[in-house]
Structure formats: C-alpha cells, structure tokens
C-alpha cells in the first residue's frame, strides 16, 4: 500500500527523441493517494493503458519518475515493484486448479502455506469462487476466468496498487454490473489503491472516487464524478462525459454576456475581455437548457428530433449550423419546427481554446 507520485512522466514508443506531439503520454505530474479508487477514462488510443503499463513496469518511461511512498521505483522491474494488474482478457494458468491459480502470486513470493491457504479462501469467498477452488481453471466460462484473474490481482494484501485494464470487456452486460459493484465492495473491504482503466463513462463514474479523464495523451481533468459533470475543465470532458454530452457552441463573450448568433445570453460571472485570437466557445449541459415556446427574448432553434430516454426527454435542435441538445420540460408539448431555449446562467461555462476560463463572481 502506497501513495503513488508521477513526476513529469512521459512516454513515446518512438523513443525519447520523437517529436513532443507524437508522445503516447505527454508529461504528467500527479499524485494517487493510498487507498483511493481511481478510474482512468478516455477513448481508445488516449494513452490510458500506456500510463497503466508505466505504473506496473511493463513499459519503461521515456522521461520522468514514478515514486511509491516517495521512493523512486522507475528503474525497477515489474516483479520488484509490488504491483498487481488485471488484464482485458482473462489470463489463466491452464494446468492449475482455480485455487492454485489464486495462490500463484503468493507461492512465487515464498509466502508460508498456511497464510496462502487462508488468503486464497478469503478471496475466493469474496468473489464467490469457493465451490470451484478444486476445479481445473481451463474448463470455466470467460467471466469465471476473469474472476480468477481479478482474484489473482487482489490476493496479495501488500501491493502498492491494483491496476485494472478494462477488466470487464469480456463480461456480459448483466454480470458486468454485478462484478463492478463487487469490485467497489472489495475496494472498501481490502483497503487497496485501485486504478481502473476504461473507456466506458458509466463504469468509471460508478467505480471511482476520482476520475482521471485523458485525451490525446494528456490528463485533461481529474476530479470526482460531480466535478466532471458540473465543471468540465476541458471541452473534451464536457462532451465525453454525460449522455448526451455537453453542448459546445462558438460564441463571443465579454463581461457578463455571451452572444450566439447575435442573441445575448446572460452569464453568472464576469469574464472581462478575453484574449484576442483565442477560439471562444460556451459550454452548457443539455440538463441546464430547457426548450420553451418561441418568444422574442429567447434564442431560437430548429427541432431535429426528440430523444425519449424514459425518465427524461431531450430535444436535438439546430442553432444555425451548430447542433445542440436541450431538455424538454415534463408536460411540454413540442412544436413541429421552432422552439426557444432557456439557459440556466449558473451552468454556462466559457472556454478559450478548449480550456475553461474562470470568470470573476
């Protein structure tokens, strides 16, 4: 168990001399606290697996350092690092029984037999694998195999962190939910630092206390699910998280006002004068924009379609060329062509070159 610090850590598969833009992981400095449940969230190819493999030592970084409790472990091999990792596809030792599979990491480290047995029983119990302990592991279903992989990741109580690389990819959706709750419960029970890589926002938001969103090799924001939702620091976080994602539209912003299509929207904060030449956009989540009957004071938009999600309806509309989503208030009957949009000023954010601009209250 340890605090993990990344210091100016970067990696390029093309070597250290590759151009900075081609790095799979651009320099990142951050701290993972002991006992935390973290999710690394981002689309495929954003560098999240690279970051995970750097921490576990499967990949050696081109630059920077990794510290476990302040000690530099960058040059150490995976075996010496005291880390556990669960991979996307189940890794099972074919010739061993389920129990022997679970005991393998402990046996390799010379743990006394009595302690191994006790720990294997405990983990098997937590994962509901007890009835299968004596069975050959090859003859089980994919999700049972992945549970064994998870078990092998969790069986060592002294690891600095347990890393999960999209571990639920091969699992049926229904079981996915169960296993994820199980992992969450295990996290509370075992007091291990867990880092969970996924491209599925539901998975990340339900599992983690802290979600680290990555985009194009960079960490764009790290925060609680609520922070990511309420105050995305990057337009990418805005539209990657949330369903539907945040509306991002180009606007002209000065002082307390934003202008879209010549129409003025009031802002909660004062943005003064924004830098020249920057690409200014405003972002607002569909949850904080209501459609209403067209009126002179409202920004008008053309209806394209209505998405009925059951407990809530979203209208997909167009403002000029820009696509936009907005909530349909309960009981509101949507007209065929044009509607007006009502913004909640407290939740309208301003972005300059995709980064959040903090206004003055």
């Amino acid at each position, binding site marked *: 168990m340890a605090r993990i610090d990344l210091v100016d850590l970067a990696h390029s598969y093309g070597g250290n001399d590759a151009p900075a833009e081609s790095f799979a992981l651009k320099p990142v400095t951050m701290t993972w606290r002991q006992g935390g449940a973290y999710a690394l969230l981002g689309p495929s190819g954003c560098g999240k697996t690279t970051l995970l493999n750097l921490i576990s030592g499967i990949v050696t970084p081109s630059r920077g350092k990794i510290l476990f409790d302040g000690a530099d472990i960058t040059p150490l091999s995976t075996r010496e690092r005291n880390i556990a990792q669960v991979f996307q596809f189940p890794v099972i*030792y074919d010739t061993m029984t389920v129990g022997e599979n679970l005991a*393998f990491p402990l046996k390799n480290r010379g743990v006394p037999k009595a302690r191994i047995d006790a720990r294997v029983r405990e983990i098997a119990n937590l994962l509901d694998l007890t009835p299968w302990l004596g069975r050959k592991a090859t*003859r089980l279903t994919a999700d049972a195999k992945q549970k064994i992989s998870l078990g092998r990741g969790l069986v060592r109580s002294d690891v600095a962190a347990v890393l999960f690389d999209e571990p639920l990819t091969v699992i049926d959706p229904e079981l996915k939910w169960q296993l994820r709750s199980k992992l969450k419960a295990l996290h509370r029970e075992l007091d291990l630092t867990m880092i969970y890589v996924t491209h599925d926002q539901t998975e990340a938001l339900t599992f983690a206390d802290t979600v680290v969103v990555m985009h194009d090799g960079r960490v764009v924001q790290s925060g609680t699910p609520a922070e990511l939702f309420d105050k995305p620091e990057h337009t990418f976080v805005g539209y990657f998280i949330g369903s539907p994602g945040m509306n991002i539209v180009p606007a002209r912003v000065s002082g307390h006002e934003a202008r879209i299509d010549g129409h003025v929207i009031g802002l909660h904060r004062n943005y003064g004068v924004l830098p020249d030449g920057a690409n200014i956009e405003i972002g607002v989540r569909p949850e904080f924009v209501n459609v209403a009957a067209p009126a002179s004071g409202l920004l008008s938009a053309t209806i394209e379609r209505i998405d009925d999600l059951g407990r809530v309806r979203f209208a997909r509309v167009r403002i000029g060329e820009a696509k936009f989503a907005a909530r349909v208030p309960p009981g509101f009957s949507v007209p065929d062509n044009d509607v007006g949009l009502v913004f909640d000023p407290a939740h309208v954010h301003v972005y300059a070159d995709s980064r959040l601009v903090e206004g003055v209250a």
Partner: protein
Amino acid sequence: MDKTINQKAWFLVLPVFLVVAFSAILPLMTVVNYSMQDTFGNNQFFWNGVGWFKELLDPSTDLGGRFLASLGRNLLFSAIILAIEVPLGIVVALSMPRQGWTVAACLVILALPLLIPWNVVGTIWQIFGRPDIGLLGYTLNSLGIDYNYVSNEFDAWATVIVMDVWHWTSLVALLCYAGLKSIPDAYYQAAQIDGASRWAVFKAIQLPKMNRVLLIAVLLRFMDSFMIYTEPFVVTGGGPGNSTTFVSIELVKIALGQFDLGKAAALSLVYNLIILIVCWIFYTVMTNAGAERPEKQGAA
C-alpha cells in the same frame, strides 16, 4: 422433400476410383497375395497360407529373429532421438529471438537441414565421420578418441543418432516456436506481475500452450524415425554386423537382396499395421487433448 437421383454421378467418381485402385489398392492386394506364397524365382509360386506371419512372430526362426531384432533396434532408435530432439527443440525455440531481423535469419538457418535430400544428409555424415578424411572422424581420432563407425557398434549408433538430431531437431524447434509465438503478451506480463520465475513461466504458461504442437512434433518424429531408411543405409549400410539394421533396411534386404517376396510381403504388411496402429493412437490422443469445452455453470 424429394431427392434427385442421377446415376450418372458415378462417372464423376470413376477417375478418382481408378487412380486409387491402380496406385494403392492393386499394389496392396498384390502384397497381400505375395505374403501368402513362397517363390523360387521363374515366376513360380507355392501356397504357404499364414506360414510367414507365424514365422515373423516366432523369434526362433530366421525371419522372426531378424524382424524382432530390427524392430527392437528401431524402437530404441526412435526413443533415443525423441528423448534428445524434443527437449533440445524446446530449448532452441525458447532461446530464439522474438522480433527483429534476427528472427528471419534464425528461421532460415534452422530450415536448412530440413531442405537437404535424405541421401545427401547420409553422404555428408558418411564423409564427415570418416577417420581418414572426415573432419569429425579425423578430429576425434587425433584427440585420442578411437572413433570408427564402420567397425564399432557404439560409434555407428552415435553417428546415426547425432545425424538424425542434426537433421530433424529444427522441425521440433520450428513447431515449438510457432506454438510460443501464439501466446499473447498478456500471459507473460501477468506472470511477471505474479512474480513468476523463468522456470515457473515455462511450466505454467509455455509448456501447456505448446502441448498441441509438441504432440504433432512427437508424432511426426516418431513416424519418420520408425520408417528411417536412407540415412543409416548410406552411412553404415546397416552395420557393423546388423547393429544399425532397422526394419526398413531388413525389409529391403529380404525383398531385393534375397528376392524372398513372400517373407518381405508379410513383413511389410506387419510393418504397415504397426504404423497404422501408432498413428491411430496418436490421433486419438491428440483429438482428445483438443476437445476441451468450457462447461456451462454458474461460477459467475
């Protein structure tokens, strides 16, 4: 639903039937016919029933003695070369590079012995081992080792075995290499994280994953070594004495040397039967080893 019946379809099968008849069935039946008869030349044949088969299995007769002795030598030879080539092939495959241009270089070098015609392999080793002009024979003798495969039984066996190892270990190595390459990286990474030693990785991952190719390798090497003829015939001619006379060499001696067609036919049928049985055993074992189906249960 009505089936269309068209007897003309038989004509499409006819060519294959004729080819198989002339290339396999008729020659085999001729051999069966010969095995029941004795001949003294001049195309004169005398009925002998199952007499030759009885003699074959009776070590006190000349035919039975020769057959069983050569069969024993053959099995010993197969056992020795399997015991050497399989572990050696695995070690070679494990120590081969996994990527880069060296992979291609290694594969080409390994494939070279496999591409050499068998009688050329025999000739190479026959000259290589000669005490007067052969590099190996001359070197060994000048080191004070009295090595002569023409007069010493042990030296003859050693030469034939080393020759076979040189010729065929590559095949085992290439098959094992293919098996190793098919193991996903995640297995090695997981083993690293689980703290597995080199030996544990071999035992827990590599060996089980090579299971199927190893069975194929053992099967191929057993069949080939059991039917071996050309190389020992060229190097030792079956000698000294009869010490390296394997079943196939004995068979040729009887059939073409003594022109005892009846005895040779009976021997070749039994020989063929042994090979068929061994093939069947291997095939059964292999298909059973591959028939691992995940059982549906509620472990999840």
